[in-house]
């Protein structure tokens, strides 16, 4: 049987090689031309705890982490018990027979992972034992994997050859053990090597590089899951003339420090998650009020308060759109794929510069830690914007008029007071009604500069359409494709520009009989916003801390379509 798609879940304790096995398989597969996507979920502790990672390998570009598990690799009994029921009929379970024994599960076979790794002379080759066994199950040529190992460990060190040999041996041992088990899933179709250059990257790294490509030169942050990796990336890489990166003492320091940096002319950004975002609330209001460009990345996790720090959810939309007291509605870009992490970060910085105020880039845990192969972005084709600066003399009225105006930069003439109190045109505090009217309208008028008709759509003639946002785009698009193939008349719209929405897309949605919004929160936050804009939107919600499964969306969408038809 030929397979086009292959989903493996690795489950065990943190530290058993769950993540390295999945990422190793993904890397080796993409090297020869497959597409790969990983999904990881961790416990919130330093060592140990139940953890799992899923890798999906496919001959075509993949959009979600995959519903049906072809192979479960259970590193311990708990992992086996937790995940066995999700393995599809005809799938295989590989269990670590050095950790536990199973009887009477005809779907499974034992692999003495630790023992085999030890016998290669390199305990760290355990993941290659597993990958070798998996390769046999789908008849992946052994040479693909061996070449990958050779390249990966050719690092110009004395012991390179030793490590390569041990890992090659590990691949062979895994493979021969799997052969002896008699299991075989079929043959994964040959990969199609893309014509273009690729990168294999995590969502948070893609955001970091996108921001740097857009001219980011000022980053301050505070560690918080799942946003920390952006801070770490910047600490290593945002170094050089006129660049600044710093870990500060709290999210309050981060947001107010960003205001200082943005005011003084920098392209400033921070990244945080729920609890840190809540602490930034007052500062975001100050940036909006004093008209200082800056970007806040919100890597969504689950729940209010500490919630579920290492799980995924899309429940911050309302707090991102209305993050502060008073009349505030902050521009939002919500990314849904790894490529969008890169391009969304560029757009977020461009938007902040263009309208001179705070922009929120929303992402989520499932994207932050996802590793995926994407087309290498062509940096010569991106457009980078910088704020319009003031170039006149002192005595400038910085806040004059009813829209965006050139911004003076300290060190250059044009001194004014960036004021968080309501102010007149030079920035002095005032309580005059006429000024509050003028300045409130001015702040909202500036949003008009961000209206762009950038969205994706399919089958736009249908009166019912699916409109996911953020990371639910992948599963929703797969569900849409399945429904379309089965003859359901339905449309699809998607944009990462959530505020302001693309005017043309909003106009289209208003004309629909029903707009279905799959989103990972209880309240149906995006459909509620769409309804306030006059769109007849309903949500399909889920609040498990996990991404949508395509099969669930297909059945829920069908139910909604049927109700509508009746």
């Amino acid at each position: 049987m030929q397979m086009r798609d292959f989903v493996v879940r690795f489950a065990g304790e943190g530290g058993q090689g769950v993540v390295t096995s999945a990422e190793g398989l993904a890397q080796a597969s993409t090297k020869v031309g497959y597409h790969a996507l990983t999904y990881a979920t961790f416990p919130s502790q330093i060592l140990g705890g139940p953890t799992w990672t899923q890798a999906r390998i496919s001959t075509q570009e993949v959009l979600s982490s995959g519903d049906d598990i072809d192979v479960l690799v259970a590193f311990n009994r708990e992992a086996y018990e937790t995940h066995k029921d999700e393995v599809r009929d005809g799938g295989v379970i590989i269990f670590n027979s050095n950790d536990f024994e199973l009887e009477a599960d005809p779907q499974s076979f034992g692999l003495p992972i630790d023992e085999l790794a030890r016998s290669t002379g390199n305990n760290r080759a355990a993941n290659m034992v597993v990958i070798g066994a998996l390769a046999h199950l789908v008849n992946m040529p052994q040479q693909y994997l061996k070449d990958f190992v050779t390249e990966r460990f050719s690092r110009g060190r004395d012991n390179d050859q030793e490590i390569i040999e041990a890992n090659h041996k590990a691949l062979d041992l895994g493979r021969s053990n799997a052969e002896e088990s008699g299991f075989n899933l079929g043959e994964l179709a040959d990969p199609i090597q893309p014509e273009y250059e690729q990168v294999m990257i995590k969502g948070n790294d893609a955001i970091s590089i996108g921001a740097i490509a857009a001219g980011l030169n000022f980053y301050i942050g505070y560690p918080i899951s799942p946003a920390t990796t952006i801070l770490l990336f910047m600490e290593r890489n945002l170094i050089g003339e006129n660049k600044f990166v710093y870990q500060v003492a709290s999210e309050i320091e981060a947001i107010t420090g960003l205001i200082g940096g943005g005011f003084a002319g920098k392209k400033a950004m921070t990244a945080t998650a729920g609890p840190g975002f809540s602490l930034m609330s007052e500062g975001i209001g100050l940036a909006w009020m004093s008209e200082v460009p800056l970007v806040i990345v919100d890597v969504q996790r689950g729940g209010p308060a500490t919630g579920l720090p290492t799980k995924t959810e899309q429940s911050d939309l309302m707090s991102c759109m209305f993050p502060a007291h008073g009349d505030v509605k902050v521009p939002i870009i919500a990314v849904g794929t790894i490529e969008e992490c890169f391009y969304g970060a560029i757009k977020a910085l461009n938007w902040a510069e263009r309208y001179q105020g705070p922009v929120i880039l929303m992402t989520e845990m499932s994207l932050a830690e996802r590793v995926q192969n994407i087309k290498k972005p062509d940096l010569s084709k991106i457009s980078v914007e910088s704020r319009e600066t003031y170039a006149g003399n002192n005595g400038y009225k910085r806040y004059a008029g009813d829209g965006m105006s050139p911004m003076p930069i300290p060190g250059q003439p044009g001194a004014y007071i960036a004021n968080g109190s309501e102010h007149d045109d030079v920035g002095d505090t005032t309580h005059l009604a006429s000024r509050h009217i003028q300045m409130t309208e001015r702040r909202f008028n500036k949003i008009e500069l961000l209206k762009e008709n950038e969205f994706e759509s399919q089958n736009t003639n249908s009166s019912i359409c699916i409109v996911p946002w953020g990371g639910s785009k992948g599963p929703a698009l797969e569900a849409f494709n399945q429904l379309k193939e089965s003859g359901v008349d339905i449309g699809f719209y998607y944009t990462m520009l959530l505020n302001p929405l693309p005017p043309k897309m909003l106009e289209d949605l208003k004309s629909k009989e029903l707009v279905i919004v799959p989103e990972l929160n209880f309240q149906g936050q995006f459909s509620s916003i769409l309804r306030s804009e006059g769109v007849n939107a309903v949500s399909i919600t889920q609040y498990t801390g996990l991404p949508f499964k395509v099969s669930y969306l297909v059945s829920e969408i069908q139910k909604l379509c049927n109700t509508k038809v009746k």
Partner: protein
Amino acid sequence: MSKKNPEYDFKWCPGCGDFGVRRAIEWALIERLENSAKPIENNVVVAGIGCSGNLVHLLEGQQPYGIHGVHGRSLPIAFGVKMANPDLNVVVVAGDGDFLSIGGEHIGPQAARNLNICAVVMDNGVYGLTKGQSSPTSKVGAITSSTPFGKIEAQADPLELYLTHGATFIASGFSGQPRELAQLITRGMNHPGFAMVHVQSPCTTYNDFFTEMKGDAKNGIAPLIKPISEDHDTTSKESAYNLIRQPGVPIGVIYEDSSVATLDQKVVDIRSKARLKGAEDLLAEFSF
């Protein structure tokens, strides 16, 4: 600006200590303009919220840049400004409630970084703008609108706090002596590192301790303020602690250590250790 700005509707009460502090900052800025080649737009005044924060609008003469932010956050805002452009002269103006209560958490980190700014704290021992509540520097037992039965928590000692946190320049001044205060602020601005200038600035409406500070010989009241003697060793922490712990309010420079590298200098040092990369180099690291 505001003197000629009819829209600006904030006023300090007559006799407010903050008038003297404003004058002292204006003089210090004028001296800076005369002695450095840098124009007025190279100066940024970062204000907190409270009576003191309005100083940024009330400055007369050539206008520096200003930020009138949110309550308690003048230090981290100043951190952002200074690290964005270390060439700027950044001055924080804040009150005791703003700086020591809601903003207290920011003193330690900036002192540890030796952020090269000068913070001028106007201490009136009360929340004035919200009409007379107890502040960290209100005395134990003080009857205020929020402590109708007397303040029950201990009175903060700001000078000892700055010293313990590791501020590398600490001066203490009095709003009734603006000339002397201007000299302290000038020294604070010129100090390479985190400079604290703590000023006794009485509130004539809710906590008028002007006479207490200045003394009243006619009525036999000895002044609380006392100039720091010339033989005080400003380079010794030990001497600084001893000075602070004596009764009364010392006026002058309490502690000064110019040997510590500033944060902006340390950041430049890091550059020599790192391999500098652009977006293209970073992207290439993920190629396969």
